[in-house]
């Protein structure tokens, strides 16, 4: 199954898979740097699609598909573009929990892909990258990349 097929098999996401980074808002696209843009298989805006269904939830933003040279199947980069300050840490962690719960339920078609769950700062980062928050994120499976998510050709 491709990522596009998985998206089309997910409730409320049918037909929402878009080419490249087209599902991202124009102002968000510069935050994503792919080593090979042709390997970007597509993207989907989960947040907007599920806004009507769970309006009060801390929903996750996007998924981006990328075909690494050293993988036979696409990887999904689950990207949240969010202000990176201490008072937003709990919000983002709630979003991670929502995403993981959603992937076990309605989003299960997309759960089988190798993935990174990434918080990309939409502005300046206002907590220390050397602090315990970063380790706490890691324990939740969340990676904080600063302002740019760089996707390399090989996943390693």
């Amino acid at each position, binding site marked *: 199954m491709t990522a596009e097929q998985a998206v089309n098999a997910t409730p409320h996401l049918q037909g929402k898979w878009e080419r490249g980074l087209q599902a991202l808002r124009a102002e968000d696209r510069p935050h994503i740097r792919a080593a090979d843009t042709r390997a970007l298989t597509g993207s989907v805006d989960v947040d907007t699609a599920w806004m009507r269904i769970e309006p009060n939830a801390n929903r996750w933003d996007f998924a981006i598909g990328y075909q690494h040279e050293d993988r036979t199947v696409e990887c999904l980069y689950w990207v949240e573009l969010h202000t990176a300050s201490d008072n937003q840490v709990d919000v983002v962690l709630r979003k991670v929990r929502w995403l993981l719960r959603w992937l076990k339920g309605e989003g299960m078609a997309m759960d089988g892909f190798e993935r990174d769950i990434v918080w990309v700062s939409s502005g300046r980062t206002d907590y220390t990258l050397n602090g315990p928050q970063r380790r706490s*994120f890691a324990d939740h499976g969340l990676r904080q990349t600063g302002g740019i998510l760089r996707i390399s050709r090989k996943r390693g």
Partner: protein
Amino acid sequence: MNKGPLAKHGAPHLQVENFGPLKHADLTFGDLTVLVGPQATGKSILLQLVKLLVDLPHIKKEFQRAGVDWVGDFSKFLAVYFGEGMHSVWSAESRVKFNGRTENLPQWVEEKCAHRTESMFFIPAQRVLALRDGWPAAFNYYDASTPFTLREFSEHLRLLMSDFRSDETLFPVPRRLKPEFRDLLQTHIFPGFELKIDTQRAQKRLVLASTQKDGGSLPVAVWSAGQREFVPLLLGLYYLMVASKAPRRKGVEWAVIEELEMGLHPRAITVVMLMIFELLARGYRVCLSTHSPQVLDAVWTLQRLKEHGANAKDLLRVFDANPTAPLLSLAAKVMQKTSKLYDFDRASGATRDISALDTAAEEEGMSGWGGLTEFSGRAASAVARAVANSKPGVRR
């Protein structure tokens, strides 16, 4: 050029081309300036160069008193000032511009200049050598292969020791450091010990004397690595934090401390950072070089608390210090100070201004704080990826 850096020029500005490992350095000094970067990228050379620029008359006088003569040969001067093997840091392509004025160093070193008191106190990374025999040695004790900054530091400590009587306690003592600092140092660096002068064998030496009844005294050789590193630093801080009403030692405007973190537990580093804040509050222009992410964390915290309108109490909380009136006053002063940070890049030989300490910045040197948070970043990424994919049936 030899006018005091604080008096005339505002923020001192240094530009250096092709000097030792430095291909291009451009630094504006803040009240606090922190230099980071891998070993042998020129941090220490640059700080020693600033010392040369602000204190040449004093340096020449000290050399003259010690019978050091480079007979007009600039490369010999470099070797005796920066230390053996450093004669070639200056080349035909070298340029130095300080506070807007280009200096022809070889010519300038030979010029006659009126004596000025020393304006920069330099605590070098090799400070432990100043106490290797348990007592600071005189400038002349060292041979010409030793950098001037170490010889001078040792000489200062030797003179400082004359303030203390035989068998006198050096730490903890009233009127030396704030009581809050003394308590923290006692807890984190000298638990159960006092730093004393010992004369049992006629020759004075520093020992750590147990505060317990019938407890013994430990000579330098038995101290922990952290204590060995910290004691010369403490004595250097005694020199700067004069026990009088004057906030600064007469004439001294700059304080340089290389690698303050050496040998110290993070809790002890926290205390030392508070003492650095005291230097800032006293009006010294402080320059640090460091390999410690914790030092940058402290500067980052200071910057961000300031920007977000936090108060002195918030700053003290970070340092686990009681908000006593003297410490609140100190913290309030420090929150008015400016800080500049520079990363020394080995590949380009250039300095990079990372003062914003922006963890979201595009440039790796900026977001990784000059390499100091790279490892923790990689570790967190590896764990996050493992956690995110720790489920059966992941397709690769």
